[in-house]
């Protein structure tokens, strides 16, 4: 946690430092602009939302400001700060942003400022009208004993200085990219779950059929039944097809005489009116891959085939 780190009070006249460890930083009002308002707001996010409008015209142009909001009694405290400028100043003083764990504002530690805190040789930090302000040291009464800022001044909440992580991506970019990735990841997971669910639906139909026909539950039994009846089915269909085909060959000029069929094959005898009809019948039979035989000089045809 930030509070475990040493707290360093940063003011404009601070000397260049050389830090061996990470620190928390408390900024004097020289680095921020503060406004206090008693607004009928219930939630912190509402206050944060209106913060930029409160500083309209108060801030230097060209700065990229961030806002920090907290409640002090019945009033909301709005703080505007420029992380870019703060980082630049810290670098000038030998503190790299990566060494900064958390950033606090002096106003947050209002109750801790029970006396003046000296800022260099000319200035001091004091509380005036419930606001932590910088005043010239000459304005301080001589009998006042100056305080030293230590870890007891560390407030409970602070801000992380942008760029303190040393990352190539800014916090905003990180949030956007991560959010996009997470949205897609969620979509993929949902889609995957849907596919796995649909998979179970397919199994459901099989289950329903097996429940309807419990005798077919065994795969071996199913295969035996299928093998037995498929053979019968195909053979019987073939027989019926043959009879149908031969019946179709009885056209004008063709007379049927006899037909015989057993498990192995069939044989049919037709007589034709003339050679032309006999030839046509023979062609038709050959088209069906039947064997055709005819006695010389006769118009009688034997059509036969195997099953």
């Amino acid at each position, binding site marked *: 946690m930030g509070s475990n780190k040493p707290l360093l009070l940063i003011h404009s006249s601070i000397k260049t430092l050389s830090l061996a460890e990470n620190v928390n930083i408390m900024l004097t009002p020289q680095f921020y602009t503060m406004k206090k308002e008693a607004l009928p707001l219930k939630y912190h996010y509402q206050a944060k939302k209106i913060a930029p409008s409160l500083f309209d015209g108060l801030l230097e142009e060209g700065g990229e400001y961030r806002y920090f909001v907290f409640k002090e009694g019945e009033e909301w405290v709005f703080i505007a700060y420029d992380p870019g400028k703060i980082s630049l100043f810290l670098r000038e003083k030998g503190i790299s942003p990566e060494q900064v764990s958390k950033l606090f504002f002096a106003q947050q530690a209002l109750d801790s400022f029970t006396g003046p805190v000296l800022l260099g040789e000319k200035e001091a930090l004091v509380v005036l009208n419930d606001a932590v302000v910088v005043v010239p040291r000459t304005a301080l009464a001589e009998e006042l004993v100056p305080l030293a800022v230590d870890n007891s001044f560390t407030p409970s909440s602070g801000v992380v200085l942008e760029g303190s*992580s040393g990352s190539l991506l800014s916090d905003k970019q990180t949030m956007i990219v*991560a959010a996009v990735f997470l949205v*897609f990841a969620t979509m993929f997971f949902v889609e995957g779950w849907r*596919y796995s669910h649909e998979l179970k639906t397919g*199994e459901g139909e099989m289950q329903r059929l097996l429940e309807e026909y419990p005798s077919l539950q065994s795969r071996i039994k199913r295969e035996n039944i299928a093998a037995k009846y498929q053979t019968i089915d195909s053979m019987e269909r073939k027989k019926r097809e043959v009879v149908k085909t031969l019946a179709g060959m009885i056209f004008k000029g063709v007379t049927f005489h006899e037909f015989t069929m057993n498990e192995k094959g069939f044989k049919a005898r037709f007589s034709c009116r003339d050679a032309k009809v006999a030839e046509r019948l023979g062609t038709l039979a050959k088209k069906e891959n039947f064997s055709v035989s005819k006695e010389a000089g006769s118009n009688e045809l034997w059509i036969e085939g195997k099953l």
Partner: protein
Amino acid sequence: MNLKRYQNELIVLLAFLLLVTGFVYKSTQLALQAENAASAREAVSELKEVIALKKIWADKKISQKVDKLKILIPASKVSWSKKGKKVTAVYKGVNAKELNKLVSRLLSLPVVITKLDIKKTDATYHVEFKCKW
């Protein structure tokens, strides 16, 4: 290594890993679904085929249906012999109309025709068939 220094990259990397995991999960499920759906479809269609075949060729009412072939033609022309699940029938002197009716009905029955003889004598037909079920 100071992880805090690269915390944003780590967050993005983590989100990206989740994205990749989600994609792999989805792709696996999709492939599994396609595979299982195909095998389930095949199994269901096989089962349906077995059910259909059983319904046709193991119909318990076949015997009664076959009996109707006996009364289709006037009894005087029919010689009928039924033993268990086998029938041997001889029809003598059936006309063309009766022949058509008889053959059509016989072919529509789910029975194994072991013998079918039809012989024309003048204007009538002599029919003999043997079937079993």
